[in-house]
Every structure is written in structure tokens, then in C-alpha cells.
């Protein structure tokens, strides 16, 4: 029942926020309280994982019909991602705190949180898919209603593009289910027992369908072009959740559905997957170098960073899988923080171009400090979180295929080539005349607190990832080849 509460609670909260007139006026408070309570719920559930005596928390599935069963389960990986989700939702809500927004805005985030929780917890592919798709609707509204100039186009593009992927995902799921029925005569949608055939065109196509289905969300090159637009147009809070949480579900799908379903045959495809990921890394990084819009740049950097996640899990070694999973969390924190800060800048100046700023350090030293730390976390400076994930992912991939790992290492390097110049241009460069770049006030206490909340975990994970690895480890243990 507790697991149902995880996804249902935010959605009920959202409904309250949206529909109860008495609550409507205090929507932001209601939503914040719900989000914080949800965060508490998740933390509470995690005590077992911390202490290490709990491998997973699951509810007995209720068989419904046609093999569809209502079953949820939480292991270390799910827990970590749920925590990330709950945490970033709180951050995202607080990041827009001062803006004058209607109840729908606050409710959308709760909806989104609930849907993502569902994805992370569902064990039944039917429900997995439903939650997967349910994420689209609130995000569509977040981008389309509260985004910047070109928001409508971006929202539609986001929806259509990701729905395109979802159709393939649906075909992939059907392929697994139907194959299982053909071999055993039993209908089942349980992602823990569904297996694809070991060879043949059927398996290849099913695999490809999953790669496309999950790949759109990650996003994998070349089906990534929705992401820069969506990020650029989304409001800051939306970008935080989009990058911090929504991109994660694709990789999570790889970990939870794709890899277990193709135990033997998948082995052959792994180098291909790794190659795709390596392309992602390089492509995202090189493209980011050319961007002149901060949000667009960070969006492309997300493409590159998610490439490392896939790189790690495609290796299916202990360190690769752990690194890939860790990188999910890391990317959520760092990119979340980056988008948060760009959001602060945008809130102050309504600009986000690299050329629109300069010498911000003299006006906003604190912002510069936080941005700097986050940039270095993002380019994988050891001691900060980014390095641990990338290093483990790459060392996993090196075990499987050294050339791909080499490409990945180049990607690590290029990360500095786009983030640092951007950082310099905005925070250190020539001061722009006041007509171009209005005065920027430094962070207030709320904003500082939010950033500390994001940055402290960066240091903690960077220097002491042990506890997190212990939590995630058992969950991915069975995927190791």
C-alpha cells in the first residue's frame, strides 16, 4: 500500500491543488507541502536500504486481467531515483516560488512527480507504460503554458516526438508479452519474467523498438532534437525536472526492461548500444560547443552526459552499471543546478544568451561560485560527483570495448571545452553595457539555500559515493554479465 501511496499521493495532492477552490489560492503552499511530505515518505522508506538489510520493498501484485497485475516494487535503484525525483520536485517548486503562477503550474509538477514515481516503481509493463505516457501531459502543459516565447511549438514537438518513441516502446512491450505467451501459454506483463527470444529477426526488431522507445527519452542521437527546443522553452522549474528526472526514465527503462529482457542476445547488441552512447557523448559535446544560448548549451550537455549513463550500462559490468546508475543521479543534481541558476538569471534579466552577459562575478559573486562549482562537477572534475559516475562507466566500458571507452574519454575532455568558455563568457567576460545586460542581483537566501541543497550532495557523492553504491549495487547485481 505504501508503494501505491508513493505515486498516488502527489497526484491526489495535485487534484486538491487544482480543483479545491479553497486550496486554489494557496496552491503553491499546498503543492510544496505535498512535495515535502512525499520527500519525507521516500526518505522514510529508504531506511532499510541505507542500513543495507533490505534488498527491495515490494507489494504482492494483484492480478487483474489478461496477465496484467497491479504490482509495484522498490529496490535500491528505484529508491535512489524516487528520492531524486522527490527532491528535485521540491527544488523545482521552490525555484519558482516568487513568480506569479496559477494553480495549474504547481499541480502539474505534482502530477509529474506522481507519474514518474509510478514509472520507477511499476513492475508490470502495462502500468509502466501508462505512467510513462502520463508524464507527457503535465510536461506538455508546463512547457506550453509557462515557457518562453516559442513555447507552443516546443510543447507540441516535445509531445509528438516522445509519443513517437512511446509507440515503439509499446510495440516492444507487445513483442515481449506475445512471445512469452507463445512459449508458455501464459499472459504476463511482469518485467521480471518477460524474456525475448535469443535470436532471429523478431528479437532484433524488438530490441530496436525498445532502443528507439527508450532512446527518445534519453535522448539518443539522432532522435534527440526535441530536447534542445524543449529545454530552451521550458520554464526553469520545468527544465530542472525535465533534465533531472524525465531523461532518467529512458535509461531506467534500459536497466529495468531492456537488459533483463535480452539476457543472451542482448550481449551481441551491447557494443552497438555502447557505440550509440559514444556517439551521443561526442555529438552532444561538439554540438554544445557551438551553442550561444545557455539553456540550449546545457541541453546538449545533457545529451552528452546521458551518453555516459548508457555507456556504463551497456557494458554490463558491475562498475559500468553502478557508474551508469550513479551518473543518473549526478546528472540530475548538476544539470538541475545549472538549469536552476540559468533560471535565476532569466528571472532577473529575461535573457539567456551567452552574449547577453559578462562579468557577472562582480555583481553576483555567490551565483558565480555556485555556477563554477556546478560547471566543474559537470565536466567531471574528480572530487565532485560527475567524475565518479563517468569514471566507473568508462572503466566498465573499457572492459568490454576499449575503443568505445576511448571515445568516451575524449567526450569527458570535450566537456570542458564547451562549459568553461560559457562560464567565462557569462561570469567573467567583458562587462556588457547596461542596455544589453541589466543589473543582476545576487542570490537571496532562498536561492542560496536551494543551491546548497544541490551542491552539498555533489561533494558528498564525489568524495564518498560508497553509501549510494551500496544502495544501488544489489539492484543492478543481477544484470551483470
Amino acid at each position, binding site marked *: 500500500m505504501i508503494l501505491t501511496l508513493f505515486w498516488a499521493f502527489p497526484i491526489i495532492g495535485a487534484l486538491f491543488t487544482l480543483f479545491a477552490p479553497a486550496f486554489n489560492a494557496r496552491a503553491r503552499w499546498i503543492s510544496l507541502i505535498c512535495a515535502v511530505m512525499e520527500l519525507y515518505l521516500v526518505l522514510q522508506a529508504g531506511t532499510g536500504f541505507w542500513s543495507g538489510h533490505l534488498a527491495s520493498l515490494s507489494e504482492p501484485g494483484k492480478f487483474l486481467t489478461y496477465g496484467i497485475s497491479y504490482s509495484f516494487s522498490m529496490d535500491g535503484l528505484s529508491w535512489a531515483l524516487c528520492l531524486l525525483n522527490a527532491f528535485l520536485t521540491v527544488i523545482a517548486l521552490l525555484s519558482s516560488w516568487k513568480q506569479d503562477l496559477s494553480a495549474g503550474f504547481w499541480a502539474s509538477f505534482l502530477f509529474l512527480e506522481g507519474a514518474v514515481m509510478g514509472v520507477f516503481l511499476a513492475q508490470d509493463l502495462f502500468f509502466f507504460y501508462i505512467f510513462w505516457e502520463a508524464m507527457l501531459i503535465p510536461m506538455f502543459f508546463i512547457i506550453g503554458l509557462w515557457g518562453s516565447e516559442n513555447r507552443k511549438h516546443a510543447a507540441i*514537438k516535445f509531445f509528438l516526438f516522445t509519443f513517437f518513441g512511446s509507440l515503439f516502446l509499446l510495440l516492444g512491450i507487445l513483442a515481449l508479452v506475445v512471445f512469452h505467451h507463445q512459449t508458455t501459454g501464459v499472459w504476463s506483463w511482469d518485467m521480471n519474467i518477460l524474456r525475448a527470444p535469443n535470436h532471429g529477426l523478431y528479437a532484433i526488431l524488438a530490441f530496436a523498438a525498445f532502443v528507439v522507445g527508450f532512446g527518445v527519452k534519453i535522448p539518443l542521437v*539522432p532522435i534527440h*532534437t526535441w530536447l*534542445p*527546443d524543449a529545454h530552451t522553452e521550458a520554464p526553469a522549474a520545468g527544465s530542472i525536472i525535465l533534465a533531472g528526472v524525465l531523461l532518467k526514465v529512458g535509461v531506467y527503462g534500459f536497466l529495468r526492461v531492456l537488459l533483463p529482457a535480452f539476457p543472451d542476445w542482448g550481449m551481441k547488441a551491447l557494443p552497438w548500444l555502447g557505440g550509440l552512447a559514444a556517439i551521443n557523448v561526442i*555529438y552532444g559535446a*561538439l*554540438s*554544445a*560547443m*557551438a*551553442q550561444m544560448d545557455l539553456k540550449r548549451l546545457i541541453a*546538449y550537455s545533457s545529451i552528452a552526459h546521458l551518453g555516459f549513463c548508457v555507456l556504463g550500462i551497456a557494458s554490463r559490468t*558491475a*562498475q559500468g552499471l*553502478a557508474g551508469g546508475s550513479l551518473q543518473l543521479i549526478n546528472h540530475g543534481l548538476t544539470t538541475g543546478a545549472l538549469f536552476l541558476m540559468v533560471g535565476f538569471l532569466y528571472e532577473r534579466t529575461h535573457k539567456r544568451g551567452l552574449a547577453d552577459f559578462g*562579468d557577472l*562575478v562582480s555583481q553576483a559573486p555567490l551565483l558565480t561560485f555556485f555556477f563554477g562549482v556546478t560547471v*566543474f562537477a559537470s565536466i567531471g*572534475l*574528480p*572530487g565532485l560527483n560527475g*567524475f*565518479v559516475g563517468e*569514471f*566507473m562507466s*568508462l*572503466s566498465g566500458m*573499457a*572492459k568490454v570495448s*576499449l575503443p568505445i*571507452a*576511448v571515445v568516451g*574519454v*575524449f567526450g*569527458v*575532455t570535450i566537456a*570542458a*571545452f*564547451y562549459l*568553461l*568558455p560559457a562560464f*567565462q563568457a557569462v561570469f*567573467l*567576460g*567583458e562587462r556588457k553595457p547596461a542596455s544589453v545586460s541589466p543589473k543582476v542581483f545576487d542570490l537571496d537566501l532562498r536561492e542560496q539555500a536551494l543551491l546548497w541543497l544541490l551542491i552539498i550532495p555533489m561533494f558528498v557523492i564525489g*568524495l*564518498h*559515493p*560508497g553509501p549510494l*553504491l*551500496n544502495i544501488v*549495487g544489489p539492484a543492478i547485481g543481477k544484470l551483470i554479465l
Partner: protein
Amino acid sequence: MGIPVSVICLFVAPVSALLFGYFFLLKRKPQWMHWPMILSCAVVGVAAASIAAQVYSGHIVDVSPFKWMPLGSWSISFGVRLDGLSAMMLCLVSLVGGLIHVYAGGYMENDPAFGRFFLAFHLFYLSMIGLVVANNYVQMYLFWEMVGLSSYLLIGFWYQKASARRAALQAFFTNRIGDIGFFLALLILMNVYPVAQTRFSALFPLLGQGSPAISYVGWFLFLAAIAKSAQFPLYFWLPDAMEGPTPVSALMHAATMVTAGIFLMARSWPLISLVPHLPNTIAAVGALTAVFSGIIAATRKDLKRILAYSTVSHLGIMAFGLGLGEVSSAVFHLFTHGFFKAALFLCAGNIAHALHKPTASVDETGGLLKKIPVTAVFFVVAAFSLSGIWPFAGFYSKDAILGAAFDRGGWASVAGFAIAFLSAFYIFRMLFLAFLGPRKEQNPPEHPHEAGPMMNVPLFFIVLGALGVGWFGAQFYHLVSSGWLGASPMVKIPGFDWSSFTRSTSMAALGILAAYLWTMQWPSFDWVWRKKIPKVEKGFDADFGVKPLVGALTLFFEELSYLLGILWDKKTWDGWIENTSAWAEDAAKSVSSLASGRLNDSLWWILLGGGVMLLRLLR
């Protein structure tokens, strides 16, 4: 497995100084920022001394108390290894670094960003300490990168200047290229051996006779060292790094940053020495670097730039020595170089300070001997040390390397001659131009003033080192060789040897003479040739084409990214995707034009559909 208190001090003191500084001083009392840092340097210095004493007495510490990335059998630990090499480096870093801290307290006095400077400065110091005591490659990589980070922060300290920003980026990016090498070396190493074997003490005894994977590791480590220690062709960032304040340059050239590459190679020598052709390549690259940048140093006008190329040159000498197998001599040179180069830089800082400028060119100096005599004396001592004149420190270490080069004969001895000559030439050219004269082309300052005790006292101690550390070669060898992990023991640092002494001293004397003639005797020759043969001067300015090449490469990357990120990804590929809506609209128009609204047409369609249904039956 106990961790000595001194080791804990090594980390706790700087970290707490940094935290205290950031959280308590930065806002309220930035002008006090140097005190916790200097205090921490003192603590670290004492700890380093006690560690060195312990190591000297043969007590090696190698513990891994803390797991960094634990994952069952795949685990990476934090640990410390205190053997000869790291104790030596610790001494150098803490001594020279600490003194430069004090100096910087005076030098940066009036800078508005005093607090920020010391935070970054101390972070630099901390990173280097972490690097030298690391007991495995992954941890070393951590601090290796942190060294890069803090150098970035410091080179770009005066971020208001575009050149400083560019130099900082260039330094970071170039080091990043080296990091590829380090990273790849790590990956390969972890592929070949169990992960726990990234620990030096476990790895080196395991090394077989040059497996191919190990040779890759060696080459990649060398790549890392090339970038970090500014070897040819990745040296160009270092002269540009002069954009930072002078104490930064001093620290970077003498004790921290660039020595890290040499340290890495010395540390990995048991591995590198097994790789075929690698030692010779290192020697060749080192020699090339030394000669190449020595020549360029002889043509520069900016004082700090001369010194920077001189550092590149000396790093080349160290690599040269390493490549020849003289690990102990190379690190000895590293040690002595730390002193005399720090001294030279601080003297240059004194000059700049006297001129109230961030940096000084030889056009603006001349005849400073009388105006700032203390600095002049310090400079002379350091210059003799650098030229390798007996009995200054530089002589002992450099002569050991040159001796090995002469023993090798052939190209190595030619390089040795050239190096001995060039170092003396460029440093004395600088000395003459700065302190003698002034020549009529120079515009010396009217009223320069000597630096205060906050600067000169630490400088004095450093100069003392530049004078005398060479006398303790035997003790140094004893220290460095304790805990050596190589299969064969370290080569001894040779003592005083007449034959090599004659050769190298005569070359140095020749260099000094040439420098005198070049600058003082023939009127204004240092300026004349520039006017006469501008093409050659341009060649020197462009480092014989290395700088344009770097520029072209940068441009290439920019163009490539524009091509991919804008032209292809946004305009073309995403354009196609966006265009699907236009295609869909066209399709929609044609599909919907089928519904003409004419009744007979729709009846025709019914017939057609029926026809298809029936035709289907035929097959």
C-alpha cells in the same frame, strides 16, 4: 594500518584553512585571508619535515584507510604512500610553497580580490600535496585534476583581462588533453590488472616484461606528463600562463603544477622503464623541449616570459634526465629547480612590484642594480644556480644529468652542450638587461623601490635554498631512494666529477660571456637584430609555428562544432524533422482533395474498392 598524525595534518590543516577562509573571512575580513593559509603552511611544513625524517630513517607508510568507490571486488580507495619520492616532493612543496605564500601576502596586499586569491592559492597547494602523497593512480588523478582546476583559477585570476581568461582556458584545455592520456592509462591498467592494483605498491611488483597493454599505459602516462609538464609540443600553455600574478607563476613553476608531470613519470618509472623505446623517446622529447624553449627564451623581452620558457627548458632537462634513466638526478634537479626558479620568479615579481606593474619587459628595465640591490643580489645567486655554476645548487643537479648525457654520447651530448650554453645565455642576458645598463633603448623607471620584508624575507630563504641545497646530494639520494618501487635500484646521484664539471662549466661560462657580448658589449645588439631581420623575429614570436598551429587547431574545433551543432544538427537534421509537418500538410491536402464532394466519384471509389476485393480472390 594506523595513519600517522602528520599525514592527517597534511590534509586537515589546508582543508580547514580553506573552509574557515571561505565561510568566515571572505565576506567580512578578506584582508586577513592569508593568515590561516600561512598557518596551515606552517603546520604542513612541520608535518612534512617530520615525515621526511621518518622516511629518511627508512620508515615507509602505505595505507589505504578509506574506500572511495567501493563496489565489491571493484573498489578504489583513498590512501597515502609516504616514501622517498613523496617525502621529497612534500618538502619541496611545503617549503617553497609556504615561503611563496608569505611572499604573496606582501605582493598581493593591494589587490581587491585578496581573499579569493588566497583561497585559490591554497587550494593549489592542497592539491599538490594530495597528488604527491597519493598511493594509487586513481587518487593521483583526482589531485592531478584539482591541480589543473586551481591553476585555471589562478592563471585567470585577473579575469578582467581578456588575455588572462584566454590563457587560463588554454592552460586548462591543454592539460585536459594530457588528462585523456592519464584517463586512458587508468582504464587500460584496470583492464589488465585487478582494480586494487592501481595502487603503486601492488602494481609495480606485478609488472611483467613489457606486455603490450602496459606499454600503452606507459605511453599514455607520458602523454599526461607532456601536457602537465609542458613538454614539446604541448608546452605553449605555460608561457601564456604568465597572465596570473607573479606568486602564482612562482608556485606553478617551482613547486606545484609543472613538477607534477615529472613526478608522475618518476613515480611510474618502474612501469615506464619497461616499455620499449619509451625512455629514449622521453629523453629525446626532453632534449628537444630544452633546446627549443631555451632558444626562444633567449629572444623574449618580457621578464616573466623569459623565465617561463626557461622553466619549459628545465622541465625538458628533467625529462631528458629521466629518459636517460637518471631518476634520482632528475628529481634532484626538480628539487633544486624549485628553489632557484622560485627565487627568479620572485625577483621578477620584485621588479614588477618596483615598477608598479603586473609584469615588466626588458625595455622598461635596466640599471636596477643600484636601485634595488637586494633583489639584484638574490637574482645573481639564482642565475648562477640556474646556469649550473659551481658551487650553486643548480650545478649539482644539472651536472648529474649532463654527465649522464655526455656518457651516453652522440645526440645526447650535443643536446647537453646546447642546454648548458643556452641556460647560461638566456638567464644572464636577462640579468644584464635588467640590472646593468641602462642601454639607450631602455626606459628604466625613475623611482623604483625595494620590496618590503614580507616579500624579501621569504625570498631570502628561497635564495638560500638556491644557493645551498645542492650540497646535500647524498642525503637527498638517501631520502629519495627509500621506498623505491622499481625492480632495479635508483641510479646514484654522481658526486663532483672534474671532467663533466669542466665541460658544463665551460659551456656555461661561454654562455655568460656570449650574453655579455650580446647585450652589453656590442651596442644594442639585442635590439638591432630585431629590426634587421624581422622575419626571424616573427618566427621566434610564433614559437616557430607552434602558436599558429594551435590557433588553427582551435579554429578547426570551433568550425567543426559550428558545423555539427548548428549547420547539421539544428538547421539540417532538425530542419528535416520540423519539415515533416510541412510534408504532412502536403499529404493532408492531397488526401483531402480525394474527397471531391462529387457523388459519382465516391461511387467510383466504391466500385474500385470492390474490384480490389475481388481481384484479391484471384491469387
